């Protein structure tokens, strides 16, 4: 077994809403980026754990001090509890990845939003100390591009919960000029959708999680033949409401900022390559599953002479798989060695 084979390489997409890991032993895991600690002894007896992570934490949230530690794809500043929560999420993912072979050292490539400040990267380094032996931090859309080998003349749009990252691949590691990060993303759609529903159906009770679920199931842009009917309580009684128009309006709120950013980045591409980039716009991230989004962006590109927008096959794992691809290609000297 070579030195490289002794190491478990992993790619991690640390997301505001969900975090994913892809490993060199073929495993893939995804977890909701929530961590909860029992609020008291009674809660601890009920949940029978000292800490709950992911869907389990959301389900038991009434018993927990629940944290969603990432905000716009970054560790929230100033809260030790949130830093502890990020550690729990990463530990959970890496733990799942190493279950079969705990003796292996882990080297991780972690994707973060394109315009992440250096201070946030340093924070992430601190968090990962003791968890992994080697670390490389890359921008999330770069990881996606690397994973699908869209290395040249492509525009990646990675739509997460907290941020949407844009990155033009020009044959070099993307600089600040090649990338943009917008906070118009899944969460902003959820917020708008909740506001629109509350305005139209004032008596209806719903939570952030319900709204996210409705969006993920029914999100669309443009025309829809089907009505979006969902059930939610009103004064304790279940009631069916029609949110077709609200879902459309909330999802369409992404189109204008996406178009503007896309055109801005395209304009900065050398003229002879702009056509190629327009023909290679790639959507990834959970937000890319909104029906009609690629068509809406193609409509914008049509005004510039046409373009093609495609969605990656596996939006949830595209970032993590890309990170894994980088990890597998990285040489020994490329890794930052982290000691505990």
């Amino acid at each position, binding site marked *: 077994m070579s030195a490289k084979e002794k190491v478990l390489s992993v790619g991690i997409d640390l997301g505001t809403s969900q975090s994913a890991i892809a490993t060199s032993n073929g495993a893939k895991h995804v977890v909701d980026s929530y961590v909860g600690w029992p609020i008291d002894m009674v809660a601890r007896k009920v949940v029978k754990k000292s800490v709950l992570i992911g869907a389990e934490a959301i389900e038991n949230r009434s018993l927990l001090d629940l944290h969603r530690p990432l905000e716009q794809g970054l560790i929230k500043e100033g809260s030790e509890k949130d830093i502890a929560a990020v550690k729990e999420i990463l530990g959970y993912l890496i733990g799942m990845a190493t279950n079969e072979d705990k003796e292996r050292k882990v080297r991780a490539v972690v994707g973060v939003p394109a315009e992440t400040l250096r201070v946030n990267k340093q924070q992430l380094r601190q968090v990962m100390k003791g968890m992994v032996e080697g670390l490389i931090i*890359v921008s999330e859309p770069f990881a996606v*591009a690397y994973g699908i*080998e869209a290395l040249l003349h492509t525009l990646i749009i990675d739509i997460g919960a907290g941020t949407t990252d844009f990155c033009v691949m020009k044959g070099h*590691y993307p600089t600040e000029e090649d990338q943009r990060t917008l906070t118009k993303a899944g969460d902003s759609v959820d917020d708008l959708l909740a506001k629109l529903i509350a305005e139209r159906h004032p008596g209806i009770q719903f939570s952030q999680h319900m709204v996210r679920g409705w969006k993920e199931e029914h999100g669309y842009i443009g025309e829809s033949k089907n009505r979006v009917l969902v059930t939610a309580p009103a004064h304790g009684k279940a009631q069916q409401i029609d949110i077709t128009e609200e879902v459309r309006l909330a999802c369409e709120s992404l189109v204008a900022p996406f178009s503007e950013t896309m055109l801005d980045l395209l304009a900065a591409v050398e003229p002879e390559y702009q056509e190629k980039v327009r*023909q*290679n716009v790639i959507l990834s991230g959970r937000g890319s599953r909104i029906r009609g989004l690629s068509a809406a962006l193609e409509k914008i590109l049509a005004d510039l002479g046409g373009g093609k927008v495609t969605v990656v096959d596996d939006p949830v794992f595209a970032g993590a798989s890309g990170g894994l691809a980088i990890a597998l*290609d990285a040489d020994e000297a490329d890794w930052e060695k982290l000691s505990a």
Partner: protein
Amino acid sequence: MSAGAGSAGRGGGEERLKRRLLAGAVDDNVRAIENRPRGRLYKRPPITRWIVPGVLGLAALALGAWALFVRPKPAERVVFTPTTANGPTSGSPRLPDFDEIATGAELAPLALSTRLDSQVFPVAVRRIVLDPGHGGSDEGTKTPYGLTEKILTLDIAQRLALRLLAAGFDVTMTRDTDVKLYLRDRVRYANQKEADLFVSIHVNWFKDGRANRGIETYYLGPSDDPFVTALASAENRESGYSRADVRKLLDSIYSDLRQQESRRLAAAVQRHLVGAVREVSREVRDRGVRSAPFLVLVETEMPAILAEVASLSSPDEARLLGDDAYRERIAGALFDGIRAYSMIHDEVRGKETVR
């Protein structure tokens, strides 16, 4: 999925491209670890500008002490010599604590730890760039009667410039006519001039103008005050910077030596402004020395402040601002604040040399 046309082609070419991309990613990590910025935004890192003269200055001081020189020759020091009736008084009989003289009160510690103590590098103040806010089509705040921030800031800056020139400082202004300038151009100008201080002059506007009448002075730093964030956003509007530029700028700025100096200059200016204005209107609030990410403060390579010298939203103050004497008073207070700050540097240098 395969990227199809977007992929780099198979074989050696693709491998080379991957290797180059990977090397770029590694380089980006190394830069982050070493806290080095990417790109070439800083032609001359601000810290370098302080360290080089600072270290040279310390070496000179050590040599001077060893050789028992009592004082440097006058030409080697910036000696502040008042030449006008409004000029400074003679130096203090003792050398007080820096913050004490600057603010009259103890300042709260900086939110972020500072790496260097600015008193290690006492640098004289010689060249000052004044920046009258707004201009041209960018009028800034405006009363219903047509009194505009752009005209007020220019007037006050011109009055201040005359005082500073008379006192022997080398003074230039980012604009001396009613012309629109991007923030980026203002910053470039100050950096090209290699100024020792940058003072941006503005007039505030509060939504509740009658209740909120106050003076505040900003230095560069983060802010979690929604009002300050909104104000910074408004003042940053005509910046000419891209978001990527701003990201790079903020990356390495908050904890450097310049922040300490800017804060001290802001404290000195604020104290004098409040004192002078309260002599004629006691109800003016001291809104204090505050940190905020105004773009003119971000890329300037020297200690820099943004003074909101009045609030045009207050009808009383708008009336006062229409009066020459009131604007002269504000200019005088700004002058006194700058002078107090520069005197401390001068005295620290003198003290170090004498010892």
